[in-house]
């Protein structure tokens, strides 16, 4: 009797165990199986495309992958509206909507378009790929030209001051103090000028760039104030020597004032030519 009872209990246990597994399996396969093929524009199946099937009403989503032929299948979908998103490397994401009607199976094929690339537009790799070196060259150029600009602006102060003091230093009743002050200001102007010029001349050139706009005038004027800034102190030194000997400034040294004024004017015009830019 006891053996019979034990057998019945065991059978009931096995049945209960069996139902525990079977019920979820039945629950999974209930609903509609949505399946189809994900293809590219040539008609070839897209393998390993990631798919997300989202129930619009509940917000719940199911993820799956296509097989090597681009085929997918998602079982157990309840009737309703779904948003299908398909992602695959090298393709544009395809987001489509489908209404699951509630039958046992439904088919939805989708096409993935390739992502347009810069090569598709006819740009070469050389045009589209930058480099840290190119950027470093641009950075260095900007940095050096900023220093050139600052030193150039600072140099205007002793240049203007030396032009003003030049009228005192070169006059008939000139004193050695006037001459030394003029010499000191002229030297400071020359030092700042050549330091500024160094940063402009040594700034890296950018290949393939043509000079356009006001910078052309700025550079052209340098052919006037550059030689002028060399010639002016040479003539000034001769004039200083002649004055120190009590002589009247004569010969080539008498051009010192005129050369200095032309140089200063060209320098001022050069600054103005690029002042209204950043």
């Amino acid at each position: 009797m006891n053996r019979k009872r034990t057998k019945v209990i065991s059978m009931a246990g096995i049945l209960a165990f069996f139902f525990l597994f079977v019920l979820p399996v039945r629950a999974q396969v209930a609903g509609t199986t949505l399946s189809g093929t994900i293809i590219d524009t040539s008609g070839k199946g897209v393998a390993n495309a990631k798919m997300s099937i989202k129930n619009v009403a509940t917000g719940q989503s199911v993820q799956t992958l296509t097989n090597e032929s681009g085929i997918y299948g998602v079982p157990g979908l309840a009737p309703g509206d779904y948003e299908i998103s398909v992602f695959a490397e090298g393709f544009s994401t395809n987001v489509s909507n489908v209404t699951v009607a509630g039958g046992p199976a439904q088919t939805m094929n989708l096409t993935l378009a390739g992502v347009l690339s810069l090569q598709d537009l006819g740009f070469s790799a050389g045009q589209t790929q930058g480099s840290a070196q190119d950027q470093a060259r641009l950075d260095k150029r900007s940095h050096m030209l900023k220093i050139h600009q600052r030193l150039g602006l600072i140099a205007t102060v002793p240049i203007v001051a030396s032009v003003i003091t030049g009228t005192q230093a070169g006059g008939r009743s000139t004193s050695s103090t006037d001459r030394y002050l003029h010499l000191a200001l002229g030297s400071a102007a020359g030092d700042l000028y050549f330091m500024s010029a160094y940063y402009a001349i040594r700034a890296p050139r950018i290949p393939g760039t043509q000079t356009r706009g006001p910078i052309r005038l700025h550079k052209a004027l340098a052919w006037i104030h550059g030689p002028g800034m060399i010639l002016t102190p040479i003539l000034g030194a001769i004039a200083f020597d002649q004055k120190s000997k009590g002589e009247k400034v004569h010969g080539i040294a008498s051009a010192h004032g005129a050369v200095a004024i032309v140089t200063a004017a060209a320098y001022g015009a050069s600054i103005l030519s690029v002042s209204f830019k950043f």
Partner: protein
Amino acid sequence: MEKKIALLAFLSLLAIPAYAQTDSQWTLEQSTLSYHVSHPLHQVDGVSHAARGKGICHAGQCDFLIAVPVKSFDSGDSNRDLHMLQVARGGEFPMLTVRTRLPEDAADSTTIFADLEIDFSGQTAKFRHIPFQLLTQGPVSKISGTIPTTLTDFKIDPPSLLAMPVKNEIPVRVEMTWRREK
């Protein structure tokens, strides 16, 4: 039953080439892109005509890609252009690209609203619902509009003149002529 399977197989054979087709394609024929920079002392416009673009349409949606070399923008001063190229990190990121997706029937409208994804200066910025005017005559569509870009969108430090920086807003005016090919 066998007949049904044969019919399904036949339909599948028809369906796949239909999906494989590209519905239509767009090619950028002409373009003028110009950025505008405002500074307390002056206004600057940099213009480029060097953009190239394509659009590929499938299943009622068109994916567009437009690209332009950053160094092709000309403001009339090569020194300023090189400075802009430097601040925009154009040496490292030489291209400005715009991607957008539009419905294929958008060409029939006079105004379209586009969601744009712009890559510039190593940054990607998204601009939603940007209005463009559209004039379509046959296969040719002329599109114009302004994208309200700012320097901060692309993490660019504003360049300055005489210690005064330029404004953050650098709107980009777009005028393009596209041709549709079936």
